[in-house]
């Protein structure tokens, strides 16, 4: 038997047929075998941004934690989540989940339940104390954070992870901001908030409660720190400027929630009117339902224009709350001992405003009166920035900041509800993250303008800390369904989250949304299309006709061997997630 030997046209001394191996085998590689020489198209791994991660105000590592959970690597999933968000239990409950609105799966059977998955992970690790490792020591640089809501504590967390010494100053006696005093427990059980705050504090953060800057401590003392982050939130409830709003029995929405959540006693009659259409108004009426009251909600526009989250309004209606629209309060009168009368102007729609929302105006001479024992005005809040000093610039009553949260005072940054952005928990944490990353650059003496100009200013912790071991990414390219090969997508209906029945919601503050169990959450992860991000399915390896794609065990990634890739493009077509691009050879 003739054994294989190196064969090729380059061989000078040709073998006889008897000397040749049987079956045209060769141990060597004649040049013609290097099929890479044939290539005029080049495929290459290039990840795109999943729309969920792009839509998330925190830039959460959604694809990663969903995929890792799907692989039952719960610890990995947890770290991918917690690295970017110190409040997964809070966001898993109260975030308005723009990730799901952006999810490509919405074009199929409905978006992946990212929020329920996030919450599942947070609940799974509810009794596990965990903090990420502190990445580097910053040689004693000290940070001050004013305010302990989601923005303040998140900024403290991110900075502490980056090795800074952080002191938090909180005016109230408890940490937590709006989630502590505003959001009702049936939406956010307090033990979840407590646990996540405890995790943050365990990084060694110094806490000063009952310390209102501008009153208990001079603003100028903040400037002794190397940098300052202002996140005092929006707690001031502006007057409506109608007669009678100062009467006893008339409350402000946030004031009511805050007093109730801090267990102060409030005497409530039977007839309660709630004015407003935002999240605070909805929280107030749903709180009242749980106190066995039937409040009436009045709103000056219509249901469609209510700024509250749609799901919250739905749940309020499910709970039997009556809402009347196109009614604007004009005066409160006292009628008898403690009874109040609210007079409202009837409103009508008057075209669209500049922001696209319908404008409303009063119908002349048409009024409606309502009797009430209490009236709760939940018509909006504004930040109280009277404590500011040192010439900090404001715009429209909000602290003016640039895109990374820096004020006109170099070492002072701001985020959350004191800056011009949507006032939500996730936007607050997102602004804190942007600021924390900018503060890190600032404290290292780097020029933020320059870094931002070159596109090197990271939006996420994984980018900033360089711990995303993903494939090269084309920045700013969103993965759309056109990038995906949906032939690999198995139809799977969106899981429904479990909810407390309506009858079980009265007389207690038990959590309404019960989330998902382990099996349901795992099943839901299968719905993630992993848009634009390699999920190591191995399709490229299986399909490559030249066996030119292989797993490199050193980096745990698939790599293309261009000596053999002949540019057929099959991997590009068969990649379910669109993480393989194709272009002409030589094209940049």
């Amino acid at each position, binding site marked *: 038997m003739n054994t294989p030997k190196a*064969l090729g046209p380059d061989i000078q001394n040709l073998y006889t047929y008897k000397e040749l191996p049987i079956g045209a*085998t060769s141990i060597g590689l004649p040049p013609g075998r290097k099929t890479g020489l044939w290539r005029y198209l080049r495929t290459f791994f290039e990840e795109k941004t999943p729309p969920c991660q792009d839509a998330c105000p925190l830039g959460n590592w959604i694809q990663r934690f969903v995929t890792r959970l799907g692989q039952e690597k719960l610890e990995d999933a947890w770290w991918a989540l917690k690295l970017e968000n110190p409040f997964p239990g809070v966001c898993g409950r109260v975030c308005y989940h723009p990730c799901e609105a952006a999810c490509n799966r919405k074009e199929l059977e409905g978006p992946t339940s990212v929020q329920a998955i996030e919450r599942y992970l947070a609940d799974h690790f509810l009794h596990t104390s965990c903090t990420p490792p502190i990445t580097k020591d910053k040689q004693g640089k000290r940070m001050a954070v004013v305010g302990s809501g989601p923005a303040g504590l998140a900024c403290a967390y991110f900075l502490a992870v980056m090795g800074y010494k952080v002191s938090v100053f909180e005016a109230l006696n408890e940490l937590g901001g709006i989630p502590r005093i505003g959001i009702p427990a049936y939406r956010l059980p307090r033990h979840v908030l407590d646990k996540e705050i405890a995790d943050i504090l365990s990084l060694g953060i110094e806490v000063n409660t009952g310390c209102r800057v501008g009153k208990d401590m001079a603003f100028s003392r903040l400037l002794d720190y190397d940098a300052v982050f202002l996140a005092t939130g929006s707690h001031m409830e502006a007057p409506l400027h109608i007669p009678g709003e100062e009467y006893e029995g008339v409350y402000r929405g946030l004031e009511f929630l805050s007093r109730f959540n801090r267990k102060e006693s409030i005497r409530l009659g039977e007839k309660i009117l709630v004015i407003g259409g935002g999240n605070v108004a909805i929280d107030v009426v749903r709180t009242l339902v749980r106190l066995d009251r039937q409040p009436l909600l009045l709103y000056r526009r219509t249901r469609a224009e209510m700024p509250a989250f749609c799901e919250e309004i739905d749940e309020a209606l499910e709970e039997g709350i009556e809402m009347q629209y196109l009614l604007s309060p004009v005066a409160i009168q006292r009628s008898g001992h403690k009874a109040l009368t609210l007079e409202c102007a009837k409103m009508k729609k008057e075209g669209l405003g500049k922001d696209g929302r319908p404008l409303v105006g009063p119908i002349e001479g048409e009024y409606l009166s309502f009797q009430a024992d209490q009236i709760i005005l939940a018509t909006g809040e504004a930040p109280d920035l009277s404590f500011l000093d040192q010439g900090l610039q404001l715009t429209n009553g909000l602290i003016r900041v640039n895109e990374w949260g820096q004020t006109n005072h170099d070492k002072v940054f701001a985020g959350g509800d004191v800056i011009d952005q949507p006032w939500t928990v996730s936007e607050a944490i997102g602004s804190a993250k942007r600021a924390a990353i900018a503060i890190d650059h600032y404290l290292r003496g780097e020029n933020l303008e320059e870094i931002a100009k070159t596109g090197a200013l990271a939006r996420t912790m994984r980018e900033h800390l360089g711990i995303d071991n993903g494939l090269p990414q084309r920045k700013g390219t969103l993965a759309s369904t056109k990038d995906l090969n949906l032939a690999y997508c198995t139809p799977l209906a969106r899981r429904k989250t479990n909810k407390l029945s309506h009858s079980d919601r009265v007389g207690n503050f038990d959590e309404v949304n019960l989330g998902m169990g382990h099996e349901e959450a795992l099943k839901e992860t299968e719905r993630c299309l992993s848009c634009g991000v390699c999920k190591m399915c191995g399709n490229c390896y299986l399909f490559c006709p030249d066996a030119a794609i292989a797993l490199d065990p050193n980096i745990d990634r698939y790599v293309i061997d261009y000596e053999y890739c002949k540019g057929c493009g099959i991997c590009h077509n068969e990649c379910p997630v669109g993480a393989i691009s194709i272009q002409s050879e030589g094209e940049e």
Partner: protein
Amino acid sequence: MLTGNYAAAYGAKIARVEVAPVYPITPQTHIMEKLAEFVESGELDAEFVPVESEHSALAVAIASQATGARSFTATSAQGLVYMHENLFVASGLRLPIVMVLVNRALGAPNSIYPDLNDSLDQRDTGWIQMYVENAQEAHDMIIQAYRIAEDKRVLLPVAICFEGIIISHYMEPVEILDQQKVDRFLPPYHPEHVILDPDRPMSVGQIVMDDSYYTEYRYQQQEGMDNAKVVIQEVDEAFGQAFGRTYGGLISTERIEDAEIALLTLGSLASTARAVVNHLRDEKGIPVGLVKLRAVRPFPDRELRECLGSVKAVAILERDVSLGAGGIIYTELLRGLQGLNYSPRLIDYIIGLGGRDVTFKDIQDIAGTTFEERNADSIDNPIRWYQVRGLS
């Protein structure tokens, strides 16, 4: 009692095939189904690979055989012609795959009944082709085929061909060979020439440039075919010693020694023709003999010359035609008998196409005509389409 298809499936099972990629096609499908059952039930320790086409079936068999796994597949008619290009790859890479070809007439017009054009058309692809006449022979020949194919002097793929419906679907008594005896007769396949092994990288079937080795590799295959003539004979004898049955190797004959005329055929027609020969000899005293062609590739030139050198006329009964030339076996025989001092008259009967029944009487009539023509000076119209309606 087994159908020819089940007999073949049992043959593959006791040959302990390790990989079976098969795509269904009538009249072969039972083989695939039975193999799938064997694998499912654990009776056969093999990878059953459902593929999306016959082209892929053979591609998988090529790849699996190249890793050193004994591979088996089966097909018919359109499936076989769809495999065509891979047939060359299998033989060119010297991979001893065994494939059962259940003969079926090619469309159009569409047919599910047999003739031999599908397999005979593949005679130039470098495969050994053997034709069998019943279910038992089909069963036995799969065992023989692996031993022939894997012989280091041969290393070529083997096709075992039998007619669809007539053999594939009708039940006959079949003795399934004893597994222990088969294991002694057919040891496991351990290739030394081609083996895909990640730990010992080897490129297989690589390009050879115009003036390097293409001719030499083709000549190696020719040498394998030449050796196969010897090996087929040896294996049949060894089979006889192991199992008490032989088939004659490249050809088998019936009462040919003193015959004046011969019937030459292949496949199931041989059974009918044998009965005709015995009848004419015993009842009518006509000196007729039978030659059953078993191997078409390699073509048994020498063996045919030896047994036909003294007959006066040969009637070739064949279910196939090379349009524009004549019966394929007839044209092969014209070449094969070249060089005899005395050449018999050859009369070609194209018969039974598309599964048309060929009766005892048909063959008896042909033998009678041949006997009358045995001394003719010249044969008028030597290529005869038998019983074409409207053709006088």
